[in-house]
């Protein structure tokens, strides 16, 4: 029986879709059978981020409304043999699917996949309720901003109400130098408010923007900090105990300081 994990946040733009794509690719690269479901009907993005937009023929709404079996709608990833995407419909809206249909779909797919990751839309309305309906685990993504953390808190409350207890937290777009200067919330500040288990911290990284725009996933880039962060998160999802990365001070400045003997 596979796990159905919903990636949610409440607030938009914190990186749910990027996280979904990277976790999916990361899990698939470790030989898991993975299917990603884009539940953001009407504002689909996951297909674009993965560079699979031009392969879409059938979508989630076709599947839930019984127009075609889900296997016919799945799109195989370009890079990973065992990574699949079930794209959202773009010309419909959230009301085209209901939570019961999602529950049935997820249950049907669980036999075939080790991990099913559902990319949740922003907000707390029907799109959110659809996305969490079939899930048995939740990952909450937030950024170190007061508004994002506030929304994450609200979402965690709603998840608990729906019996998705103990959601895991990913803090995205962390800028350590800002934390150091007291200009940004630290990991501890966020954990103190949300009081949930931390699954990982992804540093702010231009490579994420670059790879996303190209329809690639940063998790397969061995030279990026964010890719490393995603790989660590993947291993933690698999149950490994991976220590948190030291991102405090990295790269050129550290080397320079070491070179001139400051450290």
């Amino acid at each position, binding site marked *: 029986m596979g796990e159905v994990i919903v990636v949610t946040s409440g607030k938009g733009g914190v990186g749910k879709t990027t996280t979904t794509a990277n976790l999916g690719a990361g899990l698939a690269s470790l030989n898991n059978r993975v299917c990603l479901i884009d539940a953001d009907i009407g504002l689909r993005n996951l297909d674009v981020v993965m560079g699979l937009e031009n392969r879409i023929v059938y979508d989630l709404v076709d599947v839930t409304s019984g127009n075609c079996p889900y296997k016919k709608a799945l799109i195989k990833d370009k890079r990973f043999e065992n990574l699949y995407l079930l794209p959202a419909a773009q*010309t419909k809206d959230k009301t085209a699917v209901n939570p019961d249909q999602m529950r049935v779909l997820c249950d049907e797919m669980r036999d075939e996949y080790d991990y099913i990751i559902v990319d949740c839309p922003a907000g707390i309305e029907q799109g959110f309720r659809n996305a969490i309906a079939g899930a048995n685990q939740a990952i909450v993504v937030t950024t170190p901003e007061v508004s994002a953390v506030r929304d994450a808190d609200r979402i965690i409350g709603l998840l608990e109400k729906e019996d998705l207890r103990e959601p895991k937290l990913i803090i995205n777009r962390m800028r350590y130098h800002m934390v150091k200067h007291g200009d940004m919330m630290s990991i501890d500040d966020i954990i103190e408010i949300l009081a949930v288990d931390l699954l990982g911290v992804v540093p702010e990284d231009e490579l994420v923007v670059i790879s996303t725009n190209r329809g690639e996933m940063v998790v397969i880039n061995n030279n990026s900090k964010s890719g490393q962060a995603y790989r660590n998160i993947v291993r933690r999802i698999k149950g490994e105990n991976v220590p948190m990365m030291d991102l405090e001070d990295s790269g050129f400045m550290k080397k320079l300081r070491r070179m001139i003997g400051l450290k």
Partner: protein
Amino acid sequence: MAPYWAGGNLVHFPGKGGGDPEDLADENTILVQRTLRSGQSISYDGNIVIVGDVNPGAEVVASGNVVVMGYLRGVVHAGAGGDENAAVYAYRLQPTQLRIANHITRAPDGEETGSKDPEVARVKDGIVVIEAFQFGPERQR
């Protein structure tokens, strides 16, 4: 009374050229004078002419031909009822996906296609081919 366009008969444009103009009079065509944005879609039993762009994420479905007087970047389906004679004409033909009758095509991965000239896509010998648009109806077939 039903509206004049509700005939719903399949059209076979482009014709052989010449012939009696009366034969062409019953073809259904709608004119869309705006840009279709992501999430918007038009489907019509007949031909569709769009004066504007079709953005990625938008969808145009016609039982006949599709003409786009602008950038065609979304998904387009001509001959949706199974008409293999249907064609897609665009000022700039860069669709996410292009379908004619029951053929589905897309641009190859990682290739920057994008001709700077008007193009036409149609089915020839069972495959979808894209050619530069030649002005003048006689040279179209």
